[in-house]
């Protein structure tokens, strides 16, 4: 979809083939100093005119963040490189949020033009939110959805307009004490989406959000909460990009999903941060009776991603799925996975993970299947496949199964291999170059993922993969 928009750019000229690596001149209405203190949290909350309880929530979370040690698992070497004192925790790009694209400040508009957002809107996607730095700069939702009673707002506005419902659910799925980065997000969150779908309403066209970091050493901490009332359906899609700077940025989001009885939520992420972004995200869903939650999670960018979308299956017959791909190129570590926690009987889950490591990249699958006692009739299946494209790269699989109930069926399978010689030979005998053949095999390997995406995203993903694959032979 962004084909025309990216034309003026020589992709190779933008460091490391990363086409979203440009950055805009900073012209901000507010930019916090570096470092994190209670003062910054107070100021941020005051600027946003927040209710007292939210400020208290933030300050309590800050306290937890400061006290909690860094994780001792995962890529601790990279994690310990994060300098929390060298990050801008809040940057306000514009003083107003626009509903008409033409009124968005020119510089920001140009950025999103390059990313193809108005493009997307012209195609009548249901709703679009664009977050630039800490806050949402552009927002739109289709009128018919508004008439159906669907709420799709940025989180800051939602807090003003729907305080009661937010107060009831905010931080209930991922409490600040869950982990150090959830605590950080809870302290300094800004932006993100709030979605509420009334009972029985099906949102047929995906809601979309774009996240963009522009400032060097920026921290982006968006906060998303989606509540699907009984029997409703919604598909939410997010995309993320950032410019290439020599020093690192931090993206630490918290995403909470609540699927009430019989509701169905699908959450799709195409994460394509530049290779200097730490992407440390906590995503968790609760699925009630007969509900269904799906995380479709694509990880292409970032320096280090640690992300394990999880689903707590708390009502009988709830179903959870995670479909995850990770592409780890040079100097990247994709530590991604999934967690399924079966609390109620007859709940089912499926995890499919595909990873590709290349040019010294490292892809890790880390997952958990947990079945609590009395959760009888649980069925869970996990499938992890990894493809290694050269001898410099690395692939890890770290699954954990904790099964505390006997009447269950749990299956896990994983494979690691290289591109099959026979497949290559066959394709090349049909006239493809080696590079084309490998790209085709990789696309085929990822097909279970791509086929779950809306068409324009699938096309975009294939293009991104082709870009990543360039120069992988010879």
């Amino acid at each position, binding site marked *: 979809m962004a084909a025309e928009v990216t034309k003026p750019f020589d992709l190779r000229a933008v460091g490391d083939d990363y086409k979203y690596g440009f950055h805009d001149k900073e012209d901000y209405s507010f930019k916090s100093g570096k470092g994190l203190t209670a003062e910054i949290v107070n100021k941020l909350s005051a600027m946003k005119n927040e209710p007292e309880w939210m400020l208290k929530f933030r300050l309590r979370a800050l306290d937890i963040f400061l006290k909690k040690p860094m994780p001792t698992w995962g890529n601790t070497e990279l994690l310990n490189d994060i300098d929390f004192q060298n990050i801008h925790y809040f940057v306000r790009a514009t003083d107003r949020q626009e509903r008409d694209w033409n009124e968005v400040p020119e510089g920001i508009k140009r950025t999103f033009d390059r990313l193809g957002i108005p493009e997307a809107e012209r195609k009548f996607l249901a709703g679009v939110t664009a977050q630039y730095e800490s806050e949402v700069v552009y927002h739109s939702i289709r009128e018919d959805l508004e008439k159906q009673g669907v709420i799709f707002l940025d989180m800051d506005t939602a807090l003003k307009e729907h305080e009661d419902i937010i107060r009831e659910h905010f931080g209930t799925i991922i409490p600040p004490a869950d982990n150090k980065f959830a605590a950080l997000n809870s302290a300094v969150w800004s932006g993100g989406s709030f979605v509420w779908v009334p009972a029985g309403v099906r949102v047929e066209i995906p809601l979309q959000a774009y996240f963009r970091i522009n400032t060097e050493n920026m921290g982006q901490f968006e906060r998303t909460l989606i509540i699907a009332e009984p029997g409703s359906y919604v598909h939410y899609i997010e995309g993320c990009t950032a410019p290439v700077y020599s020093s690192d940025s931090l993206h630490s989001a918290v995403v909470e999903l609540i699927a009430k009885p019989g509701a169905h939520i699908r959450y799709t992420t195409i994460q394509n941060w530049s290779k200097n972004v730490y992407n440390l995200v906590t995503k968790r869903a609760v699925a009630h009776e007969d509900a269904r939650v799906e995380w479709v999670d694509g990880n292409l960018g970032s320096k280090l991603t640690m992300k394990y979308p999880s689903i707590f299956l708390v009502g009988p017959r709830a179903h959870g799925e995670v479909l995850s791909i990770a592409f780890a190129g040079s100097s990247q570590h994709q530590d991604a996975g999934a967690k399924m926690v079966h609390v109620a009987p007859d709940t089912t889950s499926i995890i499919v993970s595909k990873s590709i490591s290349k040019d010294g990249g490292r892809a890790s699958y880390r997952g958990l299947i947990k079945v609590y006692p009395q959760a009888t009739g649980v069925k869970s299946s996990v499938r992890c496949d*990894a493809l*290694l*494209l*050269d*001898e410099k*790269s*690395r*692939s*890890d*699989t*770290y*699954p*954990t*199964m*904790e*099964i*505390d*109930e*006997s*009447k*269950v*069926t*749990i*299956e*896990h*399978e*994983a*494979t*690691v*291999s*290289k591109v099959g010689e026979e497949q290559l030979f066959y394709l090349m005998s049909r006239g493809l170059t080696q590079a084309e053949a490998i790209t085709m095999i990789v696309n085929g390997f990822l097909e279970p993922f791509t086929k779950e995406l809306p068409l324009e995203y699938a096309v975009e993903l294939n293009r991104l993969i082709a870009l990543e694959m360039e120069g992988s032979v010879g």
Partner: protein
Amino acid sequence: MAEQKTVSTATQVDDPTKRREEPTWMKEARLASWESYLSTQLPGIRDDGWHRTDISGLNLADLRAVDFHSPEASASVSPWVIPALDSLSSHSGVLIQEAGTPAYLKLDSELADKGVVFCDIETALKTHGDKVRRYLGEPADLNDDKFTNLIKSWFNCGLFLFVPPGVEIANPLLSFTSVNYRSSGIADGAVLPRLLVVASEGSRVTLLHSVTAPLSQAVDTALHAGLVDIHIEQAAHVSYLELTEFGPAVYSVTNTRAWLNKDASFTSLTAALGGRLVKGEISTYLNGQGASAEVAGVVLGADNEKYSFNTIEEHNAPDTRSNIHFRTALKDSSTSIYQGIIRVDREAQRTDAYQSNKNLLLGSGAKADSIPKLEILADDVRCSHGATVGPVDQEQVFYLMSRGLTAAEAEELIVLGFFTTVMAKFDHKPAIAWVGSAIASKLIAHDRDSRKQSAGEQK
């Protein structure tokens, strides 16, 4: 060695070398490991390899290393070993070690003439010091955990097996170790075997090792902690079987390590059939090109028994192959944790590794964890793993019952079949039958007990 020695952190003056007639280098090595022991902590449930394995109930300070004795010519075969010797009648040597009584030792004279050494560890230190020093005299390893340090400093039984280059031993060597706490009057004792196997270039040997500590109500806690080191030189082959059956008071911690040189091969079968908490770690280091390992494990849990096994496959050389098959069947409220890791080094191109863990949950309170891990740094590899957890297939039960079996018999048969598939990977048929009958008797005895119990409840 007349007195019992205290293995106690409370009394740091304890000296593991006291009253031992051993070479100075051995005493020094024991002391060095004792120092390390005193400064290391008991593993916690978050430590590597100890996931949800809680050993904090074991108070090492209360334990004493029990006394074992060297072989005497007059020693005779104890009655409890006779059934095993019957089912393994073709063998090349036997070593029986029991707490408090002289060891029994026999080795085919033909093998002794060829230079094969098979004896208890104490004798080995006295008469083959030159051969064992390289392995036992090594300085304390900083990576050793508390139990390894404990064994290295206080080992009180065990064996040494040396096979000279090119010698192929067709029939297995047998080792039986037993502590009968009740009859020996030893309470709260520690059995700390150290096994050392060296298979020289082009040699071939099978070692069957069994440790039992019969049930005893008289004992609060007892510990079996073993260290098994197996060195397999170029093109040599070792088959190693370990069968452990412990009573409900016994904690067991075993660390088995095999180092494989070029074209070496290793086949192992671990069978764990009882104990309060049975922890085992089986590491295979495929250090030479073309080395291959076949590692199998069967665990049958009942009552409140807890099992925790780790397998570690390190592929450090090209063209290496490993196959892991670990199967667990859990009755009542027994629990199992299996962790397995395949590590493939950058050098280890053309590695072929497979790991499978299957868990049958038979009892309503049974729990099983499975953590099969892969760390792959080479690209031209074939690595995969699979894990399953679930109950007995009711269709199979139904089929067998339609053929006239009771539900209990059907389950027994299915469990035996479940294990047999994996045991068949071991390359010594009589040994498989021997372990199979031990599994069957635990299954049957247990079913009989629970039937009696439920009959009693009905009255």
